[in-house]
């Protein structure tokens, strides 16, 4: 079973890139989304991410993420669109509720950005081994301890989700009504469960820390990793593409 943020093994052109280029490229795409006010550019970033996913041979999971995000986006869109009061009214409903063109545009941009930011990060995490990412971050000068903590934390997120669902299952078996459809009721039941989740996580993290300590975690230095990463032509291409995208965003910003 592979979780959402797990590494998906592969040997495509994208997989073989330098981990730093992957990192820079995905964060660059996110940056581009926030710099621009143009819907089309953000949409372009989404298309670019999907293209990337196709190249990495993981279009299917990427589309699944996109589908899930779309549902969330629809909710967010609805929550936003009624609250912008400036601009021309395009749709007027009873009870002083109306939708303006600015509201529409703002909510669209918001939702598109959300999707455009999530996809590159998702793809980057799927095509990069955590250890490679950690090594890349240490090469950048980040102390190994922090890089390790960061990447480990990311790996723990899906584990938390799994653990939570198991704990909820256990409570259901005890007769707690987690299978209730009532959202508020469910929330009230979930809150006390944070304790066992926290306890088992603390225990697990403590164990991981001891295990890491025993294996010489503390004697590790900046160049302890045996793996050498070389910047190839692929990296140049990807980083070039990123420069082009950012340039387009910049041009649009000043002249658009």
């Amino acid at each position, binding site marked *: 079973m592979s979780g959402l943020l797990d590494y998906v093994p592969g040997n495509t052109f994208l997989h073989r890139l330098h981990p730093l280029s992957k990192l820079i490229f995905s964060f660059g795409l996110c940056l581009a989304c926030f710099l621009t006010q143009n819907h089309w550019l953000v949409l372009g970033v989404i298309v670019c991410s999907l293209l990337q996913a196709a190249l990495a041979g993981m279009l299917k999971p990427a589309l699944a993420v996109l589908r899930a995000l779309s549902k969330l986006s629809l909710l967010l869109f609805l929550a936003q669109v009624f609250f912008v009061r400036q601009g021309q009214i395009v749709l007027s409903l009873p009870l002083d509720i109306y939708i303006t063109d600015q509201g529409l545009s703002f909510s669209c941009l918001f939702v598109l950005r959300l999707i455009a930011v999530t996809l590159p990060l998702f793809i980057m995490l799927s095509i990069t081994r955590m250890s490679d990412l950690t090594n890349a971050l240490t090469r950048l000068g980040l102390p190994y301890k922090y890089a390790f903590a960061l990447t480990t934390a990311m790996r723990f997120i899906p584990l938390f989700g799994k653990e939570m669902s198991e704990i909820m299952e*256990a409570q259901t*078996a*005890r*007769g707690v009504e987690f299978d209730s459809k009532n959202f508020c009721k469910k929330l009230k039941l979930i809150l006390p469960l944070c304790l*066992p989740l926290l306890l088992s996580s603390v225990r697990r993290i403590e164990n991981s820390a001891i295990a890491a300590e025993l294996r010489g975690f503390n004697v590790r230095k900046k160049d302890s990793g045996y793996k050498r990463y070389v910047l190839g032509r692929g990296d140049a291409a990807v980083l070039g593409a990123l420069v082009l995208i950012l340039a387009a965003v910049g041009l649009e910003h000043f002249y658009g």
Partner: protein
Amino acid sequence: MLRLAEVSFGLEGERIISKISFTLGQGEFAALLGENGAGKSTLCRLSMGLLKPAAGRVLVCGQDTAAVKTSAIARQAGFLFQNPDRQICRPSVAGEIMLGLELTVPDPAERERRCRETLALFSLDPEAHPFNLSRGERQLLALASVLAPGPRLLILDEPTTGLDYRECMTVMEIIARRNREGATVLMVSHDMEVASDFARRVLVLNRGELAGDGPVREIMRDQALLQRASLLPPQIPALALSLGGQFAAAFTIEEMAALAANSRRGRL
């Protein structure tokens, strides 16, 4: 009590349980055996309604698990998880035992009484924090809190794994007493000795299929079946079968001792 009819279940395209049918009557004590990954825990979760079958039906006390909520089934059946840390969620031992009682026993005084009774039965310290208990003690606590509301059907996923011999016997005696009082038990175990000592019926699971189902004495002597399911028969039946002849029928230590004494007397 528990009835499975042609139950199949799969995850991510993989068949985990295929076409399993059996019925446990009131008061039965069945052991569910099989190698790691055979699908025992999955079968238990299906029986409790935590998982819904892809095909076939599961009936707990006459209720179809696909039709009623799991929390409703939990009023009839108790489920012990393989990992006790999953189910412990209150900051004190007494609180943990109370959780199950609060949902099933409306009268506070009765609740108190049952809680004290359970604490005494398992000799647990009510004020202790579950986090500070040893793995075996946490296992005991989990079992105690499952038993406290007095469920009519007990589904136990490896109740004795991780316990020392004395604790194991304490736990099994408590379960056996519940069974004598009328509760139906379905117990997963990797300990063939425990299974053969306490269960009266054995279900053998092999790669998601029910490879064997019968009285404990028959199954434990079916070497071909046990071998197919990668199980080792308990020591005394194994010894009995390898000795053969007049000893072949022995199942317990007492029986073997009696047969051995007989044969010695015969030779004298």
